[in-house]
């Protein structure tokens, strides 16, 4: 440490920094060496990277990538996760499958579980027809309202899901409306008359003259299923014609079409595809959308 002589300026007491010898327009590149451990870390990362690409899927080949020695895949990880969740839920699923759905009280853990599990079933199986918000569409009932074709208690909903509607299974809910026009069961003018009567029933605008004749046509042909006052019959899945809700539409043209050609809405028997726990869960989910009875 011989600092004498040049010690006046402390900035210059240190030995001049070595340069790399590079010089551009008089600008020299200093050599401030990196710490050696930094270099080791770099080499370690390379070694780690090589090992990692051997252990895990990495290198793209002609047909897919190398699978890696550990046999890991993200798809496999998801399958493991699903398996572990299924195992976790096995007990409560068994409880749900064995339970009487009418006896599962709201705000209990089993009910909360069923609601959430039912939401998952609904999103996977039901929304294609009933819509992601369960609001239905033309021909596919809205599950949010308080009008039910086949009953809105939780066990009735469960039965509808389990066995379906107008499908080919024996226990399906079944009814069939005659094709009054196509099969010439009614004269065209009778159909016009009964349509006006139905419009009157539901509180829409109607032709009073035709409606009076329509009342008789209705009493002779429709009241057996839809009831004398058009309030429907859930045992036969006959819709209430006097309320504000229409499955296919309540305007004059649509009603004309419905009476002439009839309707035949079908729903699969989900009991064949879902577990009992899933059916029960879906029933409780649908029941808690706002219309449950």
């Amino acid at each position, binding site marked *: 440490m011989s*600092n*004498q002589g040049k*010690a006046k300026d402390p900035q210059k007491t240190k030995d001049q920094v070595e340069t790399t010898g590079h010089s551009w327009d008089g600008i020299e590149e200093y050599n401030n*060496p990196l710490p050696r*451990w930094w270099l080791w870390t770099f080499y370690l990362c390379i070694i780690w990277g090589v090992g990692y690409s051997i252990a895990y899927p990495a290198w793209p080949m002609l047909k897919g990538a190398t699978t890696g020695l550990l046999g890991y895949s993200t798809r496999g990880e998801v399958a493991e996760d699903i398996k572990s969740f299924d195992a976790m839920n096995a007990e409560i699923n068994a409880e749900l499958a064995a339970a009487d759905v009418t006896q599962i009280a709201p705000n209990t853990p089993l009910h909360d579980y069923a609601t959430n599990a039912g939401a998952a079933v609904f999103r996977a199986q039901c929304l294609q027809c009933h819509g992601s*918000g369960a609001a239905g569409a033309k021909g596919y009932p809205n599950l949010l309202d*308080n009008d039910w074709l086949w009953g809105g208690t939780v066990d009735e909903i469960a039965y509808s899901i389990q066995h379906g509607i107008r499908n080919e299974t024996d226990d399906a809910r079944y009814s069939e409306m005659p094709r009054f026009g196509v099969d010439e069961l009614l004269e065209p003018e009778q159909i016009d008359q009964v349509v006006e009567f139905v419009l009157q029933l539901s509180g829409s605008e109607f032709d009073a003259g035709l409606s009076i004749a329509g009342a008789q046509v209705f009493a002779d042909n429709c009241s057996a299923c839809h009831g004398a006052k058009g309030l429907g019959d859930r045992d036969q899945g006959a819709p*209430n014609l006097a309320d*504000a809700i229409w499955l296919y539409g309540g305007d004059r043209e649509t009603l004309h079409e419905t009476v002439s050609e009839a309707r035949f809405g079908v729903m699969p028997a989900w009991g064949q595809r879902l577990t009992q726990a899933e059916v029960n869960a879906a029933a409780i989910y649908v029941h808690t959308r*706002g219309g449950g009875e």
Partner: protein
Amino acid sequence: MSSKDIPSKLYKAREPIFPRRVSGQFRNLKWIIMILTLGVYYISPWLRFDRGPNLPDQAILVDMAHRRFFFFWIEIWPHEFYFIAGLLIMAGLGLFLFTSAAGRVWCGYACPQTVWTDLYILVERWIEGDRNARLRLHRQKKLDFRKARLRLTKWLVWLLIGLATGGAWVFYFTDAPTLLRELLTGQAHPVAYLTMAVLTATTFFFGGFAREQICIYACPWPRIQAAMMDEDTLVVGYRHWRGEPREKHRKAVDTSALGDCIDCMACVNVCPVGIDIRDGQQLECITCALCIDACDDVMDKIGKPRGLIDYMALKDEPAEIAGQSPKPVWKHILRPRTIMYSALWAAVGFALVFALFIRSDIDMTVAPVRNPTFVTLSDGSIRNIYDVRLRNKHGDDRPFEMSVTGDDTLQVVVEGVSDQTVIVPADGTKLQRVYVIAGPKSSLATTDRTPITLWVTDRTNDDRAFVATVFNGKAN
């Protein structure tokens, strides 16, 4: 370019540093800060605070599993993360303030890397001796029994300190006494063991071997700080106008022509980052001020005034060289920049305290269901659905009653209950489906959008909270 142009050393090995023991006011301050910071760190998880039967009794707890942060009487939920953001902003502004006022005080006194390195050096000194003894041991090539014993003892103590460090960390995240029992009986979660292993290893390695390498090469803070210092910032410096020309005082030399620096190397020998402060302000300097203590000690011995190495500001240099007295310290600290930082810091602090006091113990968020926007019921009335998240921050279950204002004819129905009241669990939330119904042909049923207000009332004490939302009718 020939290969001769390539310099010999592109990478350099770490030069070992053996800081000598020093005593003085800054060393004492550093001891006090070490005891305080480590004490707070180790003791905090063990403090208890009674919150009632349904809540943990740990005073400071980061409960990741249940997404709660407890700090004595304050409980923070995930949706109140702005408190954490606010505290981080305050920490940032605090660092700006301290850095602009006194340089790298954080680095020199309070940074965990500094505190643990200091502790590790203390252990090293206890076991292997002071600087000269450690240098001799380092230079001794042969690994005899004594060297092996000293090294192993040192590493073992370091390892134990590292283990205690990792242990204290995991205790912040779950009930500390329970976790300690589980750790000792081998029943704790693997993550707890893994966290402890990682933190033990990093503390052992960073405090024992990497030390100043972390500050110089790994930490971004020195670079940020370099940009935040200015000519008024108080930093550790050397009064070269007083010290130079430096010379070891020998009998033959005429000392009257020499500066006060006797080139005793005390300042260099005590430096934990291995620099010579007489070379001026350097990137490596963490301003631990130990060189000040070392130099003051020497100045006392040779009968010269203290302060050859001292906290000083760049602005004072010309004045001092000209023989004038420097600006008083408070003038360096109290200036627009630091006042502004303090004001911002205090403003954020006040805002957080204010937010803490106005926040309610009950709360809800309302998401109107837009799929569909409304449902027509069989009698023609219009129903809107709202997904309501109810929050109960009390330590017991509470009955929450839902109601609506906006129109007297509106009717509220709560899914799953016969009245409008649901039980929300203690310190928990409930996602509740709520229906609002407007009668057939009523004005709300036939209007496109009407603003309404949903209310939740805690039936126990009539605390209320509200959320403004809309009711969608069937226009046309």
